[in-house]
């Protein structure tokens, strides 16, 4: 089936190049030192949100969807390090964020993730990591969990056109939870990444795509009922999405992960903008995004980063990791890939130029934790 854009989608596409010609927007970013995941966490996050203008004006009376960063199987650990202290965002950061959102008056808080190749409820996935999802559910009044790797009980996928028409795909079909929210939060880990150089609030959005459509095991003739496999389609471009979802614009474009994945991530953030980016850099891993990457090692930056613009927030986080957020391909951390932040800038999402970003709280120079020495 050929994809026919609606009038609204066409207007969005036509409007984007105009936006892209203007300088990408800049927004303040809050940085805080946080030595651990104890009582200091809530205070640090609350102070950061206040530095950004307060959560109340952003979330009061609204439905907030939080995309969690729970990459890979819950059965992998880097050595003995719990997942929340390595490749996953820490459960206490989730709990503290939910608590503060509730305190700020959020009407409904939805925790979203597309867990690895399963239709299991998200709470069940968390249990396998030895987390206590019941504690997260109690952190605010109305907390829900949703596995967005498949349609679940929803009726229809929601289409998100990429403003400007996109690099690889013109639009994405996602779980409607990403549409049916007033505020979208990307709650990510501060990590490096084998394909995109860094995993931060932008790369976290790679996982909003359902594997029923974009998975290696997705049927050709339409979305599968259940997710099967990972997103090799995005990495290597060996096939097109399930029929009915927009195919690639140019199947002759490079089939290389370092070209494709940064573009797809930038597209996703352009199509489903992040209203609040939060990065857990308290305890993490260096050298890759998960224990399946050879040579990863523990690192404790002791940092939290937050902002209302995903590119700006990630730019500050990249700088805190000891890198230049505007670096070109070939320069670490973007050694073998294009720079997602610059691609996001070109789509008009935000600027990675530190000279245009106001950092509130801890200064970058005082808090840099080099991921590569």
């Amino acid at each position: 089936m050929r994809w026919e854009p609606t009038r609204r989608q066409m207007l969005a596409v036509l409007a984007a190049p105009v936006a892209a010609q203007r300088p990408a927007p800049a927004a303040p970013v809050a940085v805080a030192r946080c030595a651990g995941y104890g009582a200091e966490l809530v205070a640090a996050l609350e102070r950061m949100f206040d530095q950004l203008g307060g959560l109340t004006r952003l979330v009061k009376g609204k439905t907030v969807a939080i995309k969690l960063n729970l990459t890979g199987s819950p059965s992998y650990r880097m050595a003995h390090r719990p997942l929340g202290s390595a490749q996953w965002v820490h459960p206490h950061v989730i709990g503290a964020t939910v608590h503060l959102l509730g305190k700020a008056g959020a009407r409904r808080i939805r925790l979203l993730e597309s867990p690895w190749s399963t239709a299991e409820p998200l709470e069940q996935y968390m249990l396998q990591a030895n987390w206590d999802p019941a504690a997260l559910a109690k952190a605010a009044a109305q907390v829900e969990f949703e596995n967005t790797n498949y349609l679940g009980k929803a009726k229809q996928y929601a289409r998100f056109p990429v403003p400007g028409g996109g690099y690889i795909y013109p639009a994405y079909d996602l779980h409607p939870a990403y549409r049916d929210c007033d505020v979208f939060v990307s709650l990510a880990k501060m990590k490096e990444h084998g394909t995109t150089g860094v995993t931060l609030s932008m790369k976290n959005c790679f996982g909003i795509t359902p594997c029923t459509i974009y998975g290696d095991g997705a049927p050709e003739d339409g979305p599968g009922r259940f997710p099967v496999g990972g997103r090799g389609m995005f990495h290597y471009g060996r096939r097109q999405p399930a029929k009915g979802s927009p195919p690639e614009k140019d199947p002759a474009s490079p089939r290389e992960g370092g070209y494709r994945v940064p573009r797809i991530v930038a597209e996703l953030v352009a199509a489903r903008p992040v209203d609040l980016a939060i990065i857990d850099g308290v305890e993490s891993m260096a050298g890759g995004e998960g224990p399946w990457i050879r040579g990863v090692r523990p690192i404790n930056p002791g940092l939290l980063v937050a902002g209302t613009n995903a590119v700006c927030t990630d730019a500050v986080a990249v700088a805190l990791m000891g890198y230049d957020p505007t670096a070109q391909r070939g320069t670490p951390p973007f050694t073998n890939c294009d720079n997602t932040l610059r691609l996001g800038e070109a789509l008009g999402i935000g600027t990675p130029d530190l000279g245009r970003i106001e950092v509130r709280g801890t200064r970058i120079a005082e808090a840099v934790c080099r991921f590569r020495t």
Partner: protein
Amino acid sequence: MRWPAGWRDPSRLELLEGTPINCLLLAAEGEQLQAIREQAGKRGLTCLTVVGSDAPAASPQIRIHPRSTLDWRTADPVLAVSECVWPAVAGGSGGAQAGPTGVPWVDSNGWFVQLARTLRPRQVLWLVFEPPEKVLLRPEAYALAVADCETYGGRWVIALDAVAESDPARARGLLAAAGRAVRFFMQHARWRTFVPHAAVGILSDFSGANRDPSYELLNLLARRPLPFRILENARGAALPLEGLKAVIYADQQPPEAPLRERLLAFARAGGLLVTGPQWGAREGAPAPGDVYERFTVWRTGKGRLAIAKEELSDPYLAALDVHLLLGHEHDLLRLWNGGSLNVYYTSSPAAGRSGLLQLVNYTTRRAAHPVTVGLAQPYKKARFWDLGADSPRPLEIQAAARGIELPLPEFSVYAAIELEEEA
């Protein structure tokens, strides 16, 4: 040990020196091996001649029963079973295949040993299998073959590969490795008296048309890890269901009335009963189904009755489904970086119960990242045994959001963790 057919020189018996090998299985009667028998006897070794499963029982002979045709009613004091698998990661050490769980398949006899010890608890179980051909295995693979049987209470009849049969130095090394493993398990013989922890009961008659599916279900459940108890449906209303959270009744025939009532009583009391469409009449009120929509679920009393919409003919799905239906709230144990491991979780039958966790590593190599074990039971003391160790090492116990976690030292083939409820 299965004496190699080509070994006619009694001097080869010297290769057994220093090992705990005390019995030889010889392929044939007659003059050819008479010298071996005589010398073996002088060394205190028992020699048994292998005969077919249909031969009359006689001493000093041993009947070997092919697993596929094994009649569980056989009264042999030693139940020797062939058609077992060589334990390993499927596809060999260089080509692990990923299963649908994202972890590699492993070939193991552990589930069969558990089954045999349940159905024939008074018989000694010997497993008869040979190393794979055209593969030169490391000595650790022989230790694994021992551990895969001994962990669950069986015994491997040690067999050498063709190269070792013609290379005494290799034979000596392999026998030493296997012998060290056997000696370790002999030193811990009391562990054989321990009883399995279980969240799930597998109920079947394990015969006829139900044999293959029930065998495969046991095999696949052992990979989850979801500790199970094997239940014989012949026990009817006397089934030992205590402590179980779920029971799978997967036989093709509906159960007899007393057994049916026993199972329904289990569900009404809060358990989960998983069965197929052969169950017939259902009871209770409709309840939320499984995420994959393969079951209709009924709430009955405090528990649930989950009836598959189609026959439970795929043991992989059945193993997956019971875990999904049950949920991870009831996991007795969890493993991190343990994809190549099978785990056997037991406890002492004595008062003041102590637990035992045995872990068998089918790669026979240390993992890139060490294993962490999570246990729901908040044990206070833990000791780690590496295969062949003379003494255990104390283990750190970490409190976790759910139960405790034990960061394990690296190990390549086998480890055991003794657990105490009192510090």
